[in-house]
């Protein structure tokens, strides 16, 4: 399963490197989001600093929706999806592989966004590691849900509008936990172990669900 | 108290409408 996963992950990442969707489209979109939020929430630097955690994580969620559409769309052409299924690769491996690819892209995005909020919103964390752990866990969790919902909505003509409706409520806990961790690291308050635990539970749960249901998903 | 009445009333209206809707759909389709 893991060998298949690495294969699929490498494939998706190679496609991404060649097509540069993340670089050319998702990243600019994310930066644009930061700017729009800053414009909307007013020039008061203090308020922006307090709003920064929310802004970062909302942008992450939106970008994850895009990543989900992209991940599912990679196999749209030339019957690639059927060929992937017929290739005999373990469905769970395919799921993990695609999720890994999305996770890495989201991690890169998280880095850029964090830098962006530090620069633009003046939101410098006093301790780095809670935020880092949160972003890693969240990227993985978002990776899992993106691939899951992407393949659920795949094959339907309404994928673009359906995917946000499906996935955004589901990942609300990531939004909540992520912002709380970032806010805590901004204010120098104690390490928010409960929130990190929640992120871990979320990620574990959806990883498990994905592995268990990957067979059923493939048949939809 | 009026808020309470409003709450009970709204709930009753919604549930009753849905119930009637279900009953009608149940009766309408097919022979009984």
């Amino acid at each position, binding site marked *: 399963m893991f060998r298949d996963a690495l294969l699929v992950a490498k494939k998706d990442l190679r496609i991404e490197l060649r097509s540069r969707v993340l670089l050319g489209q998702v990243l600019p979109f994310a930066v644009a989001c930061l700017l729009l939020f800053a414009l909307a929430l007013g020039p008061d630097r203090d308020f922006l600093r307090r709003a920064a955690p929310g802004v970062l994580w909302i942008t992450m969620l939106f970008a994850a929706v895009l990543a989900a559409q992209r991940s599912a769309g990679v196999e749209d052409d030339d019957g690639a999806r059927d060929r992937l299924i017929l290739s005999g690769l373990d469905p769970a491996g395919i799921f993990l592989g695609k999720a890994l690819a999305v996770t890495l892209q989201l991690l890169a995005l998280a880095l850029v966004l964090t830098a962006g909020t530090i620069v633009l919103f003046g939101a410098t964390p006093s301790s780095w590691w809670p935020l880092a752990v949160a972003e890693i866990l969240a990227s993985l969790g978002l990776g899992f849900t993106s691939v899951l919902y992407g393949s659920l909505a795949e094959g339907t003509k309404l994928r673009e509008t359906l995917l946000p409706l499906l996935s955004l409520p589901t990942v609300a806990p990531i939004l909540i936990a992520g912002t709380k961790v970032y806010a805590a690291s901004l204010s120098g308050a104690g390490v928010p172990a409960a929130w990190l635990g929640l992120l871990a539970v979320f990620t574990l749960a959806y990883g498990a669900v994905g592995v268990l249901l990957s067979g059923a998903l493939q048949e939809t | 108290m009026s808020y309470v009445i409003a709450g009970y009333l*709204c709930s009753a209206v919604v549930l009753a409408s849905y119930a009637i809707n279900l009953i009608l759909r149940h009766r309408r389709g097919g022979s009984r």
Partner: protein
Amino acid sequence: MEEQIAKRRWVSVVGILAAISLLGTVIMGLWVTPDDAVQGAVVRLVYIHPPMAWVALYLAFGLSAVASLLYLWPRTRNDRWDALAASAVEVGVVFNGLTLLTGAIWGRDTWGVWWTWDARLTSTAILLLLFLGYMAIRRIPADPEIRARRCAIMAIFAFVDVPIVHFSVLWWQTLHQSATVLNAKLHPTIHGSMAWTLLLGFVAFTLLFVWMVALRFAIEKRQASQARSELDEAIRERRAETSEQSAS
């Protein structure tokens, strides 16, 4: 035939019991029970709001998740589980909406605002969106088997989220630094006749839920079999056409 009659009678009995207990809840809730020392008359919403929340969040979600699992597991796969899950979700949406409505009214009366970021209300709102996602998927035109499988998977995705959403929203609310009046939860202390009425409320709404799901389930099954027979009819006609053509 006998099975159908027996089943229908069972449903009607539940329906009548539901109506009686609902009436009892209303009478007790509006007239017999006293006002609360702290919250006043608005506490009477406790006889309908928490029961509806319980039905929407636990009964409906739980039932749809269990039914979906049964559908997906090959050994128990059966169309009736898909029909049951869909029925539970639809009824759940109605109760969910009402939970939010009564919660908003409660908040309006108590604190003067239409929405409070109370943990339960916020969770309920998120779960409503998940339910709506299920219904959106269900509306996508597709082969019945594919649709059933998609919906079952969605139900499980949503159900896995329920405890996580519950805790994250709860901590979001309670770990909030600046305590305000709005942090108070919609939980009055219950005793005496209030407790009995509350219990009656839970029973009443549970019975109502069961009755509604049973009806919806019957409707769903009939729609499915009608769709199937229409398909068979169309296939038969087509075959008749082609055999005429080949004969002539």
